[in-house]
């Protein structure tokens, strides 16, 4: 029962439940109600014998009312001991409920300390574009298997086909801290542009492309069905198992060890390279743009890695990328002391073939990096929402280091 918040105090008011056992009781209760000086308020009307009657009684009238009921042997019990206490609790609950799930009307009201569902993220993207149309635009680079839009936010101060930085989060849908960080990065860029000299310098000459939900079908599935879903949601003919690992589906060492040919496997590479629209859309986008740095973000393990994943041999630019990685993780650690390891994929974590940054490097994108964000396994994929912003903040420092180096070392 919800009562609107009145200035009136219901302190020490009680609600009693009366049970009339005879017709006599019924008229006695009606009489009681008619005694205006008792200030009674009927919550549940008198009906017939056996049917409860609920009345609110002010604190200072309780003694009289209870004596009356006892004299006439009318059975009663206390439903609410102190109405004001109940009202206060209800008010608090309503306030915290509305604080928990507001419909943000703008990106300043967006709660970055929460994990958001897919439609909330799509709304955020549209709001950001609406708020900063001179800096941000949305490009739909393709459709997922289940026909969801693959949205990329473009941050640009103009020009045509400028050298650009690509960042993707959420290619593996269960890695929730990455999509959450992507949202924070988007807001960070619009906030810092014009305020932070380093970022402003980057955007004055380069574009930033950010794909926040790189695997929307998978992300939706982690909300509705299985929190631990990793792959796309495309069915595999002849198999009960669904999905392809989008980070084994690229044309770099495709089919090699470090990916699986079994559709039921979490690292299933797919029937052929670029078979997944989620991957193919990015491939086409990269080929038709001027990308100079490509950064794919995953969780968990706290690693910053560069190619190769599919073979053990060193890339041509090993020394430069290794040194830059070292600098980036040092900058990352400067904020909260979070310790990252770094190295090539195959050395730092495991052999993986058909991965995104192996392909982008082979396309001539020198600054190809992949992150594994917090933590190192204690929470793993289920990183508490309280860690979203610290994770995003420290990761941003590493991203800035890489982007700044890319700007200052054109090729």
């Amino acid at each position, binding site marked *: 029962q919800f009562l609107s918040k009145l200035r009136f105090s219901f302190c020490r008011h009680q609600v009693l439940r009366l049970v009339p056992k005879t017709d006599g009781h019924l008229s006695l209760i009606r009489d009681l109600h008619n005694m205006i000086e008792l200030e009674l308020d009927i919550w549940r009307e008198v009906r017939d014998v056996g049917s409860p009657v609920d009345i609110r009684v002010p604190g200072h009238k309780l003694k009289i009312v209870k004596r009356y009921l006892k004299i006439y042997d009318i059975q009663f019990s206390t439903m609410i001991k102190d109405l004001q206490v109940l009202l206060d609790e209800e008010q608090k609950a309503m306030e915290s409920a509305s604080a928990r799930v507001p419909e943000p009307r703008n990106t300043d009201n967006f709660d970055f300390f929460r994990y958001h569902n897919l439609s909330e993220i799509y709304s955020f993207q549209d709001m950001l574009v609406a708020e900063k149309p001179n800096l941000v635009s949305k490009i739909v680079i393709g459709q997922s298997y289940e026909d969801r839009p693959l949205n990329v936010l473009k941050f640009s101060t103009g020009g045509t086909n400028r050298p650009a930085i690509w960042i993707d989060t959420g290619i593996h849908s269960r890695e929730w801290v990455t999509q959450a960080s992507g949202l924070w990065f988007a807001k960070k860029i619009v906030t810092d542009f014009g305020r932070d000299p380093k970022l402003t310098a980057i955007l004055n000459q380069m574009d930033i492309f950010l794909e926040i939900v790189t695997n929307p079908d998978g992300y939706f599935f982690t909300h509705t069905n299985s929190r631990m879903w990793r792959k796309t949601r495309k069915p595999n003919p002849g198999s009960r198992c669904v999905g392809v690992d989008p980070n084994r589906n690229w044309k770099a060492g495709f089919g090699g060890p470090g990916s699986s040919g079994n559709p039921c496997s979490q690292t299933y590479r797919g029937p052929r390279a670029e078979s997944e629209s989620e991957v193919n859309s990015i491939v086409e986008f990269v080929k038709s743009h001027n990308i100079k740095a490509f950064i794919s973000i995953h969780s968990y393990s706290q690693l910053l890695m560069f190619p190769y994943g599919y073979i053990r*041999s060193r890339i041509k630019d090993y020394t430069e990328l290794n040194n830059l990685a070292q600098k980036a993780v040092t900058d990352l650690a400067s904020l909260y002391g979070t310790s990252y390891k770094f190295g090539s994929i195959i050395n730092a974590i495991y052999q993986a073939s058909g991965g995104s940054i192996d392909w982008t490097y082979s396309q001539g994108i020198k600054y190809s990096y992949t992150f594994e964000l917090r933590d190192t396994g204690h929470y*793993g994929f289920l990183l508490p929402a309280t860690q979203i912003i610290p994770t995003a903040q420290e990761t941003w420092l590493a991203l800035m280091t890489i982007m700044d180096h890319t700007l200052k070392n054109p090729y």
Partner: protein
Amino acid sequence: MRLVVVLAVLMGVSGIPDVTISPPTASADTSAHPNSIPETADESEQIEAQTEEGAEEDVMATGELNPNHYPARRAAQVVQHYLNTRYGSPFRLIGVQTVHSGNAEDVTDSRRKYQLELSVNDIISNTTQTCSAELSFTKGKGQQPPEVKASCEELLKIDIKAQEEALYQKYKTSQTLMSAQYLPDSHGHIKPDMEPFWHLGILASSFIMLNESTENTLYNVAQVANITQLTTEEDHLEFDCHTLLHEMVSQEIIHWKMLFTWSPAEGVKVLQMKRLPHRHEREKSPKTN
């Protein structure tokens, strides 16, 4: 994928594990394992052929280990699981902080030995300790669980006896048996009074993770799906528990059910453990949190 039903009695805090488990299958389906024989792909034939100047590691790291690279990390993780089986408690959970140095060598055709200097910490009290550890992996057919020698007694110095007794008494004398699901939940959230049970799920799982570990795996507990207290007359608490393990190299989520006991005096003892089939092998797909 066969169900591996295993009856084992494992010692808790003290004593050398007397393991009578038949060697578990390392992964669900050998053809799905990432290190299986490669299908022909032009580039992948270059795997062993190309070498460039500068240090390069063999597929099986030998000699001094690079602390940045995965062989040291995987070995350290095994030490973590071992330490949790020996020293772990609802109020003491051990994690690897960093590997300082390490060494690996082939002892025989089928056995490899690791030596590690590492720092571990008690996640709850955030105290750190350096330890030395020695591990031995067998490879090839008839894979045995790794053998670990490590001592980190400094970790025992933090006094948790009072908390353990309080937890034990509370649930021993309670009229109702506790039961909890999804620790932590999808958002990483866990109620403070449920944390000890999350930790117990991790500890019990550590016995499994220790047994299942090889040089090609890295295990973490992804989630405690369900932990339910059972009645028992004896001087311990008894639990039925379903946990999800995450294996990093294959990226698989592996479901295990366990029956285990815990008391302040005896620590965790796993009575039964059973690997559950993959979702695609079950008839109904289970719902999420």
